[in-house]
């Protein structure tokens, strides 16, 4: 395709506990990709699962090693979704924005040989790059197909619960939310009849950047939450067909989830809440 049919390359980044990864997490990627392809304006080139680090201190969060391994097992059969352990290998908890920036930088870096190797930053060197979602100037690049427009965008893939968590006091910094929706973009998968649109409407910053918040409706109800999976496991109930077989086998072999594991971090303040509380004190 040529001319105005040029497509923007998109990378989908999902951050979360993945404790454990489930078929629902994997579905998010499929739904998002179908959505972008149907617009005719985007081409999804990669999906990244980035499990949160242990320093997040969420109740019941088991070791990142296991969570990363399970995610890798789950995506073995995928030719476009992969797992990245950069975030989970940091010793401190990292804001989601930092993970987005990291992956965005990685796409632009010349190290790994790929089709984006010769992507040239659109701004003068030394100046902080800002990604404008509706940029129409195609940049001439060597070795890039004629149907690719601009530089690839990394978008945060999430469910409505993450989007609505923007409203939880001290969980997110306003400037982070702003940069996420302004420079990167959100892809939010939610069930029909959800309150996401209302939530966006009631937020000035989200409303301002609503063109960069893609809402995808999930018609096939699939509410396989990790919490419920862990609960079923504690009760000796089957989780087959809710998580990939290899993940179920791994959990069973390593006896990962128990009442003890669920008690981890009980009473501990979640890292972002801790951080923002102490920031505001300073």
């Amino acid at each position: 395709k040529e001319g105005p049919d040029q497509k923007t390359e998109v990378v989908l980044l999902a951050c979360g506990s993945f404790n454990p990864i489930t078929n629902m997490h994997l579905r998010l990627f499929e739904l998002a990709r179908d959505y972008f392809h149907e617009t005719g304006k985007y081409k999804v080139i990669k999906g990244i699962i980035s499990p949160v680090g242990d320093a997040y201190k969420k109740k019941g969060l088991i070791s990142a090693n296991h969570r990363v391994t399970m995610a890798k097992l789950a995506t073995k059969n995928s030719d476009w979704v992969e797992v990245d352990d950069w975030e989970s290998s940091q010793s401190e908890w990292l804001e989601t924005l930092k993970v987005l920036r990291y992956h965005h930088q990685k796409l632009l870096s010349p190290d790994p040989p790929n089709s984006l190797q010769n992507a040239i930053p659109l701004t003068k060197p030394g100046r902080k790059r800002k990604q404008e979602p509706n940029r129409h100037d195609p940049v001439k690049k060597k070795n890039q197909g004629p149907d690719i427009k601009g530089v690839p965008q990394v978008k945060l893939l999430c469910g409505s619960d993450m989007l609505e968590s923007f409203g939880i006091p001290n969980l997110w910094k306003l400037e982070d939310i702003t940069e996420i929706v302004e420079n990167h973009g959100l892809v939010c998968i939610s069930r029909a009849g959800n309150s996401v649109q209302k939530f966006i409407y009631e937020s000035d910053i989200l409303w301002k950047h609503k063109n960069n918040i893609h809402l995808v409706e999930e018609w096939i109800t699939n509410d396989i939450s990790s919490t419920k999976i862990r609960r079923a496991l504690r009760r000796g109930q089957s989780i087959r067909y809710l998580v990939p077989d290899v993940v179920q086998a791994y959990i069973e072999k390593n006896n990962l989830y128990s009442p003890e594991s669920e008690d981890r971090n009980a009473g501990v303040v979640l890292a972002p809440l801790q951080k923002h509380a102490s920031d505001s004190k300073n």
Partner: protein
Amino acid sequence: VRMKSRIPLILLACGSFNPITNMHMRLFELARDHLHQTGQYQVIEGIMSPVNDDYGKKGLVSARHRIAMAKLALETSDWIRVDPWESEQESWTETIKVLRHHYNESLRLLQSKKEFMKNKRPIERSTEDSLSYQHSVLPELKLLCGADFLQTFKTPNLWKEEHIKEIVEKFGLVCISRAGSDPAQYINESDLLTKFQHNIFLVKEWIQNEISATQIRYALCRGLSVKYLVPDSVISYIAHHNIYTEESERRNEGDLLQPLKLHSTTVNPLND
């Protein structure tokens, strides 16, 4: 309660399985967990019985494919299998007959095992053999279904009253429903079902996973992904044989379901 003294139980699911989805397989897992937790049963087998092509449902693809897909999906299950008997009959078969058939089959199998054991010298019998030989409790066969299935009993001309009675009296139902639906109420509204409610097991599915096969077919026709809703092997099979298309979806369009055809002719012999 020791496993040995539990009643052996076979779960039978009838349906289109057009195509089989992760949700279908979940029904079995949920039912088994529930029945084990009652302490009274030992689920020994799960049987999936795809309906005959003659059923006449809109969009129903050939049984050959539906059986093949179910086999692929169940390859990794050590207790659930697909049975082609119903689909191989010359015409559509009432559910009660499928239940009777599989029950008789299980009795036959039990009988032949007993014969086999009798002819074995004691030294050849393993401890397990001895246990099951003594374990001559007759198995029970129950129909596994979703809550919507219970409600179809109300549809005029779809079921014969005496069949419903035999199903709940002689066999039993294991009915999986999602949070929010209330099959107990429906049972309460039916005298027949209330009478045999001890033989209707209601299992609530807390982890919502309503993967309707109809939606799967729509997605496939539109070139959308169904990965993680249906096993990979089934997705490959569907793609390879190009099974679900706009054309396949129009099959039987406008036709009456076979049970409705049959029952309305018996009720109204004067109609053409």
